[in-house]
């Protein structure tokens, strides 16, 4: 994995720091994602993984530093505009609109204008409808299209949310713990899906499940106390003494056994 300087990074965080009333959730964080890359981010609890996503998606404004997407600063832009620029986010716990059907959830997310007038007067184009059908097939929810999303199983909700994310057709996918609570089989399928997305899309996965990350065969970034501890392939990272100390040497849970 050579960071060639010829290709401009799609996403770049430069010295990003976030302070919550004096507590620094992120400290001087630098990170760059190249277009088409698949990257895994790990770190013990409280390493700032979720804040990291919050900063990119505009939920939290960085106290210092800058976030660049295609060379353009995202700081101060409201969430919905960032989403429209092509950054999609899947949340840690599956967040689908439980009182709507599976199909309607996807209809809301599918790429296109999201203005109120379009929703009132416009109809879904044939292309959009087809995209929804495709995605239903991808995540295997075709038969549940008319079912309330709230009545889906946990795994199905995870996949519905992934489908909603794909429906947005973002350039950059931020995926927070996609396999939490999934069965082994479902985990494997999710891994395949994410790998197949890389290339066309840029994918950043946050996950606790080390087997899953190994399976992704992606470069890993380790966060610790709000900054990047080290980067590299899974094998390199796993044998890094600093990483071992962070995971095992301190009193955090021993998540880093594989």
């Amino acid at each position: 994995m050579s960071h060639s300087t010829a290709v401009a990074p799609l996403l770049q965080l430069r010295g990003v720091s976030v302070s919550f009333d004096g507590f620094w959730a992120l400290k001087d964080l630098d990170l760059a994602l190249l277009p088409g890359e698949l990257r895994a981010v790990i770190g013990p609890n409280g390493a700032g993984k979720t804040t990291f996503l919050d900063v990119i998606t505009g939920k939290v404004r960085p106290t210092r530093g800058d976030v660049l997407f295609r060379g353009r600063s995202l700081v101060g832009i409201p969430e919905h505009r960032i989403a429209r620029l092509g950054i999609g986010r899947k949340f840690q716990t599956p967040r689908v609109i439980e009182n709507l059907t599976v199909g309607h959830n996807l209809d809301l997310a599918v790429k296109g204008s999201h203005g109120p007038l379009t929703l009132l007067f416009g109809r879904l184009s044939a292309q959009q409808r087809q995209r929804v059908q495709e995605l239903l097939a991808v995540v295997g929810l075709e038969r549940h299209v008319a079912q309330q999303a709230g009545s889906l199983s946990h795994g199905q909700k995870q996949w519905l949310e992934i489908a909603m994310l794909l429906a947005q057709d973002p350039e950059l996918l931020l995926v927070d713990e996609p396999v939490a609570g999934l069965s082994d089989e479902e985990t494997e399928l999710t891994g395949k899906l994410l790998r197949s997305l890389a290339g066309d899309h840029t994918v950043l996965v946050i996950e606790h499940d080390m087997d899953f990350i190994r399976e992704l065969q992606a470069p890993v970034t380790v966060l610790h106390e709000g900054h990047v501890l080290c980067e590299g392939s899974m094998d390199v990272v796993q044998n890094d003494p600093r990483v071992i100390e962070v995971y095992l040497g301190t009193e955090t849970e021993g998540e880093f056994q594989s």
Partner: protein
Amino acid sequence: MADLVSSRHLRRSLPWLLIVIAALVLPVLLPPFRLNLLGRFLSLGIVALGIDLIWGFTGLLSLGQGIFFALGGYALGMHLQLSALAPGELPEFFGLYGVKALPAFWQPFTSPLFTLLCIWVLPALVAGVLGYLVFRNRIKGVYFSILTQAALLVFFNFFNGQQKLINGTNGLKTDTARLFGELVGSDSMQRNLFWLTVLLVVGAYLLSRWLTRGRFGDALIAIRDDEPRLRFTGYNTTVYKTLVFAVAGAMAGVSGALYTVQSGIVSPQYMAVPFSIEMVIWVAVGGRGTLIGAVLGAVLINYAKSLVSEALPETWLFIQGGLFLLVVTALPDGLVGWWRRGGPGRLASMLGWPPRTATYPQLDLDPAVQAERSELEGGMK
């Protein structure tokens, strides 16, 4: 097959047929007093529909709908005050406070067209501005409710305190004014107003239904259930909330205007704090999130109120307070919601009647059942 089609056709058109029949027959059957009451309560159904839009679907509990209700009422009230006058004359009450010239903001209300626009545009504008400021700051939940209530109190105190501008606490009477050459308080005029009310309630219902079906309605529900999620999907939820709050404001204005001409007066009491909370309870009792429930709730509760107040005025507050408690603790979906979620069936099964089970056609068509069945079949292979 033809039977099925025609019966479905009948079932769909039956409610509308009933409404038309009721609108034609009731004015003949009911004495003018009762008809007038019904007309008033129906007009309250429109403000209730607006509350259902913003609360039942979008999750914004406004305790300040009285502002928009009264603005609509005042717009029409001012026009009626002016329409009865010979040129150069002033409405009578101005004389009491020694006002010699018509205040500037009264001038445009001589125009019927301006008034007609003002009845719904003005409340919509006020609601839009107020809503935008509040929603932009992401003020929501109880803070939104408290702020709308404070805004209500501001308007109430203003209208109540301004004798010289708007006749203060006495309000504006409309009974003796003339509309199209006829006395507003007359029986035939009231009958026409009843028909107009029925028409506008149906119109407001259809508008609400159009708004809540389809993707726009889905977006509103999504805002209610998980607004941040929708924002990260690329929706500017502030615009949606402002828009729907403005629509509810416009509905409240129309409702207030209709209520004013049918009760003969508009006064700051329409902006009293309790009245606006009452509106919410109509929707809650009828069933929030069900449009027909909002209208039903408004009519039923107000009808009950007028009956109880005639017989045992002292008990009404007890009953109303009890309703608040009951609907929150025992009937969170309201009457219509309870009905739709199989409440009667559950009650019947408690009493020992076997619940009606879904049989062949319905069961087969249920997507969840289909899905489960094909999953089972898949597992058998």
